[in-house]
């Protein structure tokens, strides 16, 4: 078996743990980036054609009201400001632009990711000014909050502008028939407020667990509803006495109550059916996920085990690796510490286990971010483990303790043991990769011979100390003589 520790570390890290440290280290310079790929002319044309008409979607970012204008701009390849100007212009005489906008809003799906970057760039100066006016610094990253602020500012501004226009029109002698216009506007505002709850980007917050935002959403919905209702009532009672409102209100309420009473059972059943269906769907999806995962992992491994039934070592190794994988899938939540010392050490141990098939009992307490010294420790631990599984005897155990007093790691095997003094000068495994490496990083390393077996103890000082520059940076070839010997 060819053993080539350092490159394998990288590779294994990339496959075992897609966000492992190895992946960051392994950045091949000669790797072609997707952008530099020479595109054949036909393909390029095809791509251009495809790119010329992106699907009509509403981006979540950079929008003023619902992102319709930006979506249209992307779709048609025009500048977003012209679209907006056009929409406003055709809205003024007949309201056609407004109707078109609402139509598109209702019918265009919201995009997820993808065009976000472009959408952000498409934010026109007016938006930026609005954001600035809202008291938020204009940054490259337009955050959700500043966007909401901008929307609010624009809404208020638009309302004031509308009132101004109406006043001017009145002065100029145009009869705008305020009696209808104002209730209509109120209804529209209420509807927009209430409907905006149905927007995809809001739904998350609407259903979100954060009590604050939920309360805000409910308040908005209620306010919108009341506003729309008030508008309708004003419209319905226009020109009549105040007492008539009560009659109409009572009649409307009676009708509504009657409808509610009659339809309640159906609505309730429909609702519970819907809930039931949703739960079923969620369960089915979950089951499908589990089935897919088991198929990809456990079933494949079982098939492999059946084929290698004669090879006890291989079977054990497969079973261990599979067990570990399944365990991490079952018990580990989404890992939040990609570059933590404990994770890296555990990864290294698993990898040695995979290489040699010797089980390693790993126990770790505490954790800290992975720094330079930590990297050195991980490599030294790995080298110690390799030594232990090669020259020692199982059980091999690894204990890592990260505390305020520093980091300590112990690698212990139950083999015949050896003394550092007895190691020939030309064997660099222990001397260079373990002892030397730890010293270079301000740590300590000791090899102890026990009654049964050997224990390597590694130590690092607490992290408060500023990291010392490494005079001998980790060369990519600490492949020791000793390693080759066993290759």
């Amino acid at each position, binding site marked *: 078996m060819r053993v080539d520790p350092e490159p394998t570390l990288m590779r294994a890290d990339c496959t075992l743990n897609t966000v492992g440290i190895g992946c960051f280290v392994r950045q091949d310079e000669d790797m072609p980036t997707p952008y530099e790929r020479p595109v054949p002319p036909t393909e390029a044309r095809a791509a251009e054609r495809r790119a010329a008409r992106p699907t009509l979607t509403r981006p979540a970012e950079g929008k003023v009201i619902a992102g319709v204008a930006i979506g249209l701009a992307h779709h048609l390849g025009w500048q977003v400001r012209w679209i907006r100007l056009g929409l406003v212009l055709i809205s003024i005489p007949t309201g056609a632009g407004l109707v078109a906008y609402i139509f598109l809003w209702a019918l265009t799906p919201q995009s997820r990711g993808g065009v976000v970057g472009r959408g952000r760039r498409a934010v026109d100066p007016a938006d930026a000014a609005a954001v600035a006016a809202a008291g938020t610094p204009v940054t490259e990253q337009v955050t959700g909050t500043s966007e909401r602020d901008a929307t609010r500012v624009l809404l208020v501004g638009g309302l004031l502008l509308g009132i101004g226009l109406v006043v001017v029109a009145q002065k100029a002698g145009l009869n705008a028939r305020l009696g209808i216009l104002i209730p209509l506007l109120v209804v529209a505002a209420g509807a927009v407020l209430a409907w905006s709850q149905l927007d995809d980007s809001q739904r998350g917050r609407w259903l979100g667990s954060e009590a604050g935002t939920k309360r805000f959403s409910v308040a908005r919905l209620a306010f919108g509803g009341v506003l729309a209702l008030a508008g309708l009532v004003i419209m319905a009672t226009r020109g009549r006495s105040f007492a008539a409102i009560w009659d109409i209100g009572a009649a409307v309420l009676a009708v509504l109550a009657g409808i509610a009473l009659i339809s309640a059972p159906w609505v309730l059943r429909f609702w519970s059916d819907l809930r039931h269906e949703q739960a079923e769907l969620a369960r089915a999806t979950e089951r499908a996920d589990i089935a897919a995962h088991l198929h990809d992992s456990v079933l494949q491994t079982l098939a492999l085990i059946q084929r290698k039934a004669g090879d006890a070592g291989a079977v054990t190794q497969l079973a261990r690796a599979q067990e570990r994988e399944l*365990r*991490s899938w079952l*018990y*580990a*939540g989404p890992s939040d510490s990609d570059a933590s010392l404990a994770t890296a050490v555990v990864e290294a141990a698993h990898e040695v286990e995979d290489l040699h098939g010797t*089980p390693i*009992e*790993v*126990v*770790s*307490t*505490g954790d800290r971010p992975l720094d330079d010294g930590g990297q050195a420790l991980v490599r030294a631990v790995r080298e110690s483990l390799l030594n232990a599984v090669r020259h020692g005897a199982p*059980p*091999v*155990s690894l*204990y890592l*303790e*990260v*505390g*305020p*007093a520093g980091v300590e790691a*112990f690698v*212990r095997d139950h083999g015949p043991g050896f003394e550092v003094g007895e190691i020939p000068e030309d064997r660099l495994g222990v001397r260079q990769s373990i002892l030397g490496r730890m010293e270079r990083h301000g740590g300590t390393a000791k090899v102890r011979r*026990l*009654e*049964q077996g050997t*224990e390597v103890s590694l130590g690092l000082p607490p992290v408060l100390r500023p990291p010392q520059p490494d005079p001998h940076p980790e060369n990519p070839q600490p492949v020791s003589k000793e390693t080759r010997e066993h290759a």
Partner: protein
Amino acid sequence: MNTPEKKPVEVVLVDDHRMFRSGVRAELGTTVSIVGEAPDVDTAIAVIRQTKPPVVLLDVHLPGGNGNGGIDVLHGCKGLETADGQPVRFLALSVSDAAEDVIAVIRAGARGYVTKTISANDLTRAIQRVADGDAVFSPRLAGFVLDAFGAAAGEVAQVDEELDRLSAREREVMRLIARGYQYKEVAKELFISVKTVETHVSSVLRKLQLSSRHELTAWAMGRRLL
């Protein structure tokens, strides 16, 4: 701690996997005799109440009962004693290394915890130790204890009786067990007798069971790894 002159330890084996039960039965040598088996919580309680064995090998995950598996069995057999007046002791056996399972079953009264991948020899030794009234700590359990009591972070009890922290000596013992040392190796390392090591381990177990340290449960819940 094999004491050959002793008569075989009587053990009830509780596990819902028949294959595993027959495997253990085949593996365990002459120092252990299996007097009963049970595949679920209710059968287990009935069998244990009837046979009153000195040691019960208890799987953490079991069907039946209130849905808490091994913990239900532990609660159902509370205060039970063998014919010669010793309490019935439990050794938890699990395929799960999840901290919340381990800590929960220990706090419910188990005298130790081992994984199902343990070798037959080690299992025999662990059963013997539990029968003698000692605690069985695997390196992993020791690691959990160090973490849960904040001992790894340097918290050490000023008084030995303090329930929420480990004493300096207990911390040392736990650290050595976590490093893969056997009890007698721990004893040699610390220049104390094996009996003293056992005392320390039992005292840690007691703290683990009695401590009201609220972080303990929270910690076990939060740490769903390993």
